């Protein structure tokens, strides 16, 4: 085994980067999808739950009350484009492209080239069934804000080095 394989404290997930959350409060690479929640531009009570699947680029967009998104009719709506943009800001274009299995023929991947490459395959549109679990993962993130800090030591955090200073 290599040193990397024999390291206890190697950083497996690169640290996320800061981004503004006003438009897209939640985005993640999980369950085989780029998925998240996009705030409605017109109604402060409404959010859209959007997702694109790795490999097939099967996409879905609906409100948290399970109403289909009017923009997502056969092609990526603005919410999904915003989701891809913010996903690239948070995780970096390369990691998003790798997770979604998007091949960028020439040049560095970017939010624009990833969106274009997926759109070009005329991806299928999924139903709203995926929205509920994604929305509940968002609520789970929000619930972290309500958990009390603690002062009993967590020895296992020694395995998790902090986001590193830029060299």
């Amino acid at each position, binding site marked *: 085994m290599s040193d*990397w394989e024999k*390291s*206890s404290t190697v950083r497996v997930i690169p640290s996320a980067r*800061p981004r503004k959350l006003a438009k897209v409060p939640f985005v993640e690479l999980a369950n085989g999808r780029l998925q998240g929640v996009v705030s409605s531009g017109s109604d402060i009570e409404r959010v859209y739950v959007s997702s694109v699947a790795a490999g097939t680029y099967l996409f879905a967009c609906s409100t948290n009350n399970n109403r289909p998104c009017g923009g997502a009719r056969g092609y990526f709506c603005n919410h999904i484009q915003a989701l891809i943009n913010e996903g690239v800001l948070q995780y970096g274009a390369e990691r998003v492209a790798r997770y979604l299995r998007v091949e960028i023929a020439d040049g560095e991947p970017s939010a624009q080239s990833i969106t274009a490459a997926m759109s070009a395959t005329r991806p299928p549109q999924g139903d709203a069934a995926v929205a509920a679990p994604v929305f509940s993962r968002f609520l789970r993130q929000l619930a972290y*804000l309500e958990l009390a800090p603690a*002062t009993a030591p967590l020895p296992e955090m020694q395995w*998790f080095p902090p986001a590193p200073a830029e060299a």
Partner: protein
Amino acid sequence: MRADLLAEAIAGLDEALAAVDAFDRALVAGLLRPQPVQAAGLTQLAQAVAGTPLAARVAEAAEKTAAGVASEDHFAALAAARTALLGSVHDALMTQVADATGRPRGQDAFPAPGGQQAANLLAAGRSWLSDLARSGWQGLDNDVVSGAAQVVSAMLPDLALRRVATLLDGFAAELGSSCPGPAAERIPARRWADLWSRAMLLTLPGAAGPPVTAVATGRLLPLGIDLQEHATAVQAQVHAVFEPAGGTESGGARPRLVRASVSAPKPDTVIGAGVWQLLRPHMSALAAFSEGRSIDLADMPVTTEGDLIWSDDHARPGEPADPFATARVALPAATDPPAAPLDRHPARIAVPVFLEGYAARKNDDALAFIVAGHPLVVDTDRIPAAGPLTPQAVAASGACIGLLRWDAGSFSIQPLAVETTVRKRAVAVHAGGWAGGTADKDGVKAEKAAADAMSVLRERAGRLLRK
């Protein structure tokens, strides 16, 4: 510090780690239907603990697992065997560290952990970990990994389960980002087996942290702050020398090394210097550290392991205290606390040391301090983004407070603070310098970004939660 002693070979270390690696390789492929090579790895682990009280249980567990009929108890026995082996590696390394630092080591015996934990949640956690062991790292899929989410959500609010919950949460996120298994080009076999076995043991009754055994009254002299984080949790640990009231002159207790910890779960978008906002209100030691003060403790609960269980009620800011003066004067005579039995693991080694009179040498990307002719690798990767310390400042430094660590076969030093020269003036730069707040431009910007993120999330939570 005698850096030369840290490079000496330890008898039996390679053999112990070979048995660990053999088991770790078996976990890569999974234990649902073990192949002969995996069965051999399990046998190797069992043989390595054949002379210990674990022998019979581990031999049975290895045999049942090799036959593909393992129960959760068998998996727990294998995790215990692996933990015991790494515990012996830890002990050998710590003997070497004590020789190198020349400091006394505490020998206090540990009482058995007490406390009741919610058994059904722990059982659910153990069941998930058993599923992981069966599928193996190569067989991971989103269905297996996502099984942790509900267990973690139920555990996190319960402070008695916070430790295991935080571990499971970080572990599951890491596995999820590497799904599906076969797509992962390379597998962090030692790391994931570490996290798996620690989590497995923490789901057993009585495996929680050591109980509070005493209270501390006296003066706390901070050395530095170590920050740790995964996507949804952060912990800051203040390493300090504690001088008990009364002092050695009047026959009182000796000064000793202690830690004060504060941790918080967090949304994955609160990052960088923003994490201090979550921690600051719960431990006055962070502000005191940034102000360069000592802290007076009165009846602060403390464990045998040297962990203060912090409560601001038992602390008040004291006189100014320079961490470098503490490192030069108080640290050499301080006693190192012993590690709790279950916490004995090489990755858990984080021993405060003070170095000066070294030469910094840079090879490609790697930085090393040449200490009395012997190189000690500097772990610049553990310098947090959430502070003013930079790899450049460390490379230009003349004195360093750091944590001695061991990983993947060698020791390294994680800088917590350095003395360096800026515009012909000597200055101290601390990794935890922003813990109590900062006027630094980058620090202020990062804090504001995090505050904005939290206010957006709070607004969204107000509208969307509990509806």
